[in-house]
């Protein structure tokens, strides 16, 4: 086992990323705050994926790379694998984590519709609660996009928490 730090350090740090971008200069521009948070995640995913694939042969196809992400990569981050992987075999993959760790301390009001895809933060601006949760999803979406980008796969990633605490990450590979 490598070096570790308390999980609460990471948790409070992630909360601070979201609140400092959402309450600072970007308070009235949630789309810009979202893009910054995603960019931070992208950077992290890119670097981690570089480190975790150092001693591996190249992946032969997209599915192999996605499987690596679901198993090895996810285990390094969350000490568990992705619970379910689906694909339409045309470049869209759905990675489902039945209990996504970074949302486990959040309470979500079930009466609030959080089903909106976080792809469009502007529509969520009306709904503060959904927006707050949605903002926390840009970081992991960025990590996934960064990790795949490092493996040579360009894609768009969104998250769906309509069946919270299950979180589904939808990866659409760009043709």
């Amino acid at each position: 086992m490598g070096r570790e730090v308390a999980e609460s350090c990471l948790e409070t740090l992630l909360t601070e990323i979201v609140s400092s971008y959402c309450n600072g200069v970007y308070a009235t521009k949630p789309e810009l705050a979202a893009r910054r948070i995603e960019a931070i995640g992208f950077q992290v995913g890119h670097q981690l994926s570089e480190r975790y694939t150092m001693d591996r042969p190249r992946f032969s196809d997209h599915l192999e790379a996605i499987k690596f992400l679901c198993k090895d990569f996810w285990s390094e981050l969350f000490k568990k694998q992705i619970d379910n992987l689906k694909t339409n075999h045309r470049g869209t993959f759905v990675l489902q984590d039945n209990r996504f760790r970074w949302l486990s301390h959040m309470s979500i009001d079930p009466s609030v519709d959080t089903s909106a895809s976080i792809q469009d933060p502007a529509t969520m601006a009306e709904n503060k609660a959904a927006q707050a949760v949605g903002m926390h999803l840009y970081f992991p979406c960025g990590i996934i996009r960064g990790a795949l980008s490092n493996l040579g796969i360009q894609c768009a990633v969104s998250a769906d928490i309509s069946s919270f605490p299950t979180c589904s990450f939808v990866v659409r590979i760009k043709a």
Partner: protein
Amino acid sequence: MAPVAPRSGDAVFASVDRVNSELFTLTYGAIVRQLLTDLEEVQEVNNQLDQMGYNMGVRLVDEFLAKSNVSRCVDFKETAEVIAKVGFKMFLGVTASVGNWDAEGTTCSIILDDNPLVDFVELPDTCQGLYYCNILSGVIRGALEMVSMKTEVTWMRDMLRGDDAFELQVKLLKQVPEEYPYKDDE
């Protein structure tokens, strides 16, 4: 019931949920990098990191008090020792030392030889004036303020600037007496 004995930093660290430190370190690095892009002045980045740390300290102190079983410190000297030996260990898995006390016992230094925040970090020349680890000074200030101690925390040494250790000077400005909104006998 007998009071629970305070736990050593190692025991507390062993008992909390932990994550791989690469994830934490790289996340912190990515934040600093993004802030450097978004904010114009390095000084603003320092301030932002300090503010983020302060907010984290305000919340982390609760976890610290709940899990460490540390009882009330008799003086600032003991407080500093507890931060260095239990606090740093519990959260970052490293132990710090305390030194450079002034005659009044209100200013000291917390010294770190090993700092997981800077694994993989090298600063380019364009980042002169950046206190890369400024989040740490914020955390200490925020946490101490929650236990009624107003402090000023300043970097004295920084390995990213070529020094041989990280040294944070903690100066106790004011100890706010706790006031209860009620009296026992009323």
